[in-house]
């Protein structure tokens, strides 16, 4: 066990596995703070993962792949927002619908566009970045340097999100809309517009997370490759009490569980038991063991403007 814990690979894998959880968890924080439960993040990640590969392959540029993934992901998010916010449909059911659609649609396109051989092997990948000075520090350098550019982008986004949500006027308004939309509207805030913003941001962050899976960690797409990360991200967000830093901490913890279970491949018992832990912890957090996680008051409740 000690050898495993002292292996820098375990810790860099933790960071790599935490990234595709932290990004949608951040996105979910914006969406739920504005009052919209977005389980469609799972489907948005999957669609973004596919289009990232498609655009990267067509243009020969991983950056354009990322851009395409973000655009498609945000389009899906806006469709979701339209049905959930404007048409006040049930948010969880809509999310499920989008997730089923995404799973079928990406697999269908994978088969029709690329055939059974899968996505092309010459698809470009987003670069890994070496950080000067840090990369020369033993142990720490192996963990903190040489990661995908998305990992560093995620870390910047966490700080930016925290600042935006808790230290700007717009962030305050988003939170107000999620806690008490009636009062917010009375104070002259446009509830609908801010909920669209919250959902759009969740689409943006999930799409980056999805692109990371397909052209950050790998350079290929496979069916259902998001494999529930959008849902686990929701758990991380709850475990992190709907805050950017909390979400990141929870994502790290869940990423650690995944990385550890990968190192323990050959002993089935500990691997599968460790994989259960994030879910058990989330249930405990919701029930109130160790400081209860309380959601924004108007989370998941559609709002119809007074006029």
């Amino acid at each position, binding site marked *: 066990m000690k050898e495993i814990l002292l292996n820098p690979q375990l810790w860099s894998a933790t960071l790599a596995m935490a990234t595709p959880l932290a990004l949608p968890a951040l996105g979910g924080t914006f969406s739920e703070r504005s009052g919209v439960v977005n389980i469609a993040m799972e489907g948005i990640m999957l669609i973004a993962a596919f289009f990232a590969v498609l655009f990267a392959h067509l243009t020969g540029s991983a950056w354009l792949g990322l851009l395409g993934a973000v655009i498609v992901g945000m389009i899906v998010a806006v469709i979701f927002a339209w049905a959930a916010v404007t048409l006040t*449909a049930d948010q969880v059911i809509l999310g499920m619908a989008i997730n089923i659609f995404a799973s079928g*649609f990406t*697999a269908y396109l994978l088969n*029709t566009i690329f055939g059974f051989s899968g996505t092309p092997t010459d698809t470009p990948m987003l670069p890994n970045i070496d950080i000067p000075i840090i990369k020369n520090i033993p142990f720490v350098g192996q963990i903190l340097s040489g990661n995908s550019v998305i990992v560093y982008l995620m870390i910047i986004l966490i700080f930016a999100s925290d600042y935006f949500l808790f230290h700007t006027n717009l962030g305050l308004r988003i939170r107000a809309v999620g806690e008490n939309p009636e009062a917010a509207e009375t104070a002259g805030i446009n509830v609908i517009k801010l909920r669209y913003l919250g959902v759009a941001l969740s689409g943006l962050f999930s799409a980056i997370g999805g692109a990371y899976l397909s052209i950050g960690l790998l350079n290929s797409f496979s069916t259902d490759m998001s494999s529930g990360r959008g849902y686990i991200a929701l758990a991380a967000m709850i475990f992190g009490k709907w805050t950017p830093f909390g979400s990141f901490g929870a994502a790290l913890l869940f990423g650690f569980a995944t990385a550890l279970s990968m190192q323990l491949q050959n002993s*089935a018992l500990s691997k599968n038991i460790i994989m259960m832990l994030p879910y058990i912890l989330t*249930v405990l957090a*919701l029930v109130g063991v160790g400081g209860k996680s309380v959601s924004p008051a108007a989370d998941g409740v559609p709002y119809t403007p007074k006029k």
Partner: protein
Amino acid sequence: MSKVLKSIYMPILAVVIAIIIGSIIMLATGFNPVAAYSSLFIGAFGTLPNIANTLANAVPLIITGLGVAIAFNAGLFNIGAEGQYWIGAIVGTWIGYSFKGLPWYIHIPLALVAAMIAGGLWGGIIPGFAKAYTGAHEVITTMMMSYVAIYFSHYLLEFGPMMEKGSVPQSPLIRDSAVIPTIVPNTQLSYGIVIALVAALFVYWLMYKTVWGYEMRAVGFNQRASKYAGMNVPFNIVLSLSLSGIFAGLAGAVQILGVQHRLYDSFTSGYGYTAIVVALLAKNNPIGVVFSALLFAALGTGSQYMQLNAQVPGQLTDVITGLIIFFVAADKIIELFKTMFKKQKKEELAS
């Protein structure tokens, strides 16, 4: 329009719109939708074995869908039916292979009842009590418990206590005395279908003809009013989530005893998720669940045939399923279409 008629007509309209969008997708990717849909239909209903397999596919969807519908009726979203299904399948398998020398009329009910209890506890106790007393959202708790159940089954099968000797992660076969016999030879259709249909009638009776059902629906309709009317709201929350888990657990066991005869290692059966879709399309009516389960079962069996004969990737049916649910949830879109259509008509009349 009467409410009953509307509750039938809106889902059908949603299905029609989804099929049309499916055709557009096929046309855009160079397939012939008529050929695809006709081979889908033949695959689902073209021959007796095909019909039997479609019915067989409907069995777990009906039973799990009934459970999801009970929770929905009480205003609760049991998104973790998949995990309760797994728990039922695990318990059903274990009783199926580990008890020797029981007559079938004891062995089968024993396995089914034990699976129901296990599924009920999994869905009812933790998510139920958590919702009733701490307000923890059942969507998250049932989802998390579902993952725990699936990893638990991995643990049991991958070199765990339920793994058969050998290198394949699967359980031993259940004993003959626990097998629910098949109706149509060489198909998957077992007498499980009878259990499913009886369950549908039972849930209809429970929800619409008993005080318990009335109270659960009242709690789903308006929790605060039910509380002031003297109903025990926490009890009804735990009860409906437990019932939901009981049916999902039953579905898992029926699938093992009637079709699979052993537990395989896999990440998902898919039935728990499709069951939610089944309940939604049926607007949570137990009788409607039977028909909507048949539709999705037909999409499932037909899709393989469609892939072989029309070369259209079978996942198209998932696209259609997703669209159906989208339009069922956002039924205001359909009303939007209708008003647009009416406006156009008026303008035509005016000109």
